[in-house]
């Protein structure tokens, strides 16, 4: 009896949350599919790791265990961002290169490469190259579609934040680098 009551509470509070007081329009978009629940849980652990160091470890484990996963690109992005947080630029650069091999239009990877160059200049590459990556990221962002199952406000904030980062890189890289 207690369990039925519990169930009713969850249903009345729970499922209405999917609709609240508004109608959620159909997305018509596909999202990466995990082959097993183990794979999905492991990807969740990458996203939910409590610190950049933990993210690096979880992402590294994930890449080894699920190299053919449809989430592979996203695990690499998480690894790349964590490496940047820790100023581990060579790891970030490797992850960004991997991401771009899978998806050459990934703006976060392009931006990361630009930021790595600026952070490690002059050892890596001339700052013009950073500007080219940043400009390319801006071009991709202009036609970047809203991902499925994500709220629009978060997506828009992320997009604006990346645009601001790209403009910062362009400003630092100098005026010669903008046309590409």
């Amino acid at each position, binding site marked *: 009896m*207690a*369990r039925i009551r*519990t*169930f009713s*509470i*969850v*249903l009345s*509070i*729970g*499922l*209405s*949350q*999917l*609709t609240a*007081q*508004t*109608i*959620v329009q*159909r*997305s*018509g978009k*596909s*999202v*990466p*599919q*995990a082959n097993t*629940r183990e794979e*999905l*849980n492991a*990807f*969740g*652990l990458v*996203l*939910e790791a409590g610190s950049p160091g933990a993210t690096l470890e979880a992402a590294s484990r994930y890449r080894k265990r699920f190299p053919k996963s449809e989430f592979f690109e996203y695990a690499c992005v998480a690894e790349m961002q964590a490496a940047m947080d820790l100023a581990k630029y060579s790891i970030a650069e490797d992850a960004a290169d991997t991401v771009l091999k899978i998806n050459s239009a990934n703006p976060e990877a392009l931006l990361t490469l630009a930021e790595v160059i600026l952070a490690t200049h002059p050892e890596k590459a001339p700052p013009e190259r950073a500007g080219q990556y940043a400009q390319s990221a801006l071009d991709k962002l*202009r*036609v*970047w579609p*809203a991902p*499925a*199952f994500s709220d*629009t*406000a978060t997506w*828009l904030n992320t*997009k*604006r934040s990346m645009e601001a980062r790209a403009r910062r890189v362009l400003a630092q890289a100098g005026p010669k680098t903008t046309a590409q």
Partner: protein
Amino acid sequence: MFFLRAILACLLIAGWSILPAQALPVDACHSNAAVSQIESRIQQVVAASRWLELQTAGLELTHLCPNSDFGYHWLGVAYLREGRTFAAARTLEQSLQHRDDAGAHLLLAEAYFKLGQKKFFWEEIEAAQRLLPEEAGVYYLAGLFRYQTEDAFGDAAMWFRQALSKNANHMPARCYLALCLRAQQKNEDAETLLLEGIRKLPTMDSQSVMPLQLLVSLELDLDRPADALEHAKTAARLAPKVAKVQLGLGKAALAMHDLPTARAALLATTALEPDVPESFYLLSRVYAAQGDQRSAEQALASFKQLREQYHGAN
């Protein structure tokens, strides 16, 4: 018993930050006073949507009764409502390892829905349906998945009809069935369904907002702006802080050339959700119709800027 009460008192004093170290055997969990107390607190926090407190209560239960599904179940609900969907899925799986339960399967289906995982979603729906075939929520969630992720309107409509056959008062199922009918160009059927749903309600309350919203949109499409405006005003009275409701009122009022109402509603929309391009476009039309050219241009500029953010520069 005294020992457990003492633990609870300590927890209360410490703001629930200390977790009891001693676990109870499964049998003791079902008849334990501390567990009962936590469970009754859970009912209150769930009713009030206080998910962080539910998380704390769930954690306490998992420590008191690690071999029971109780704690994992509620912890899973808390994570799901907090938007920690991966953690919710993991925790609900743990709950199901301890006890096969229709509610946990349905919640897990919801988590996989949010994560867009088709195969796991349908596995959980099948499990929930097997355990509790008369529960309308199972059919509603299945229909919602078909509708939202696959645009399969005919199949989604079939699921929503099943949900309504189990519970004729399931308003979200009714509204989504109306959306399916609309997608199939059966606008009059959709309208009848929604009006019937509203008539079934004992009072016009928050439950009416969804069908009213849809009616506004339908009636505007059917070129019946007066009906749309009437329904939009009722919806806005019931849910004045919902941007989409205000947007519906703005559209209906504009269609009826009620410019002051349209202006107020669209300004409310932009205040509630400042990133919706359509509100600024409609606002620019209202300002222009009122002869306020400067405000019209400003609103149009905001519209163009937001449209570019969403769709890119043309």
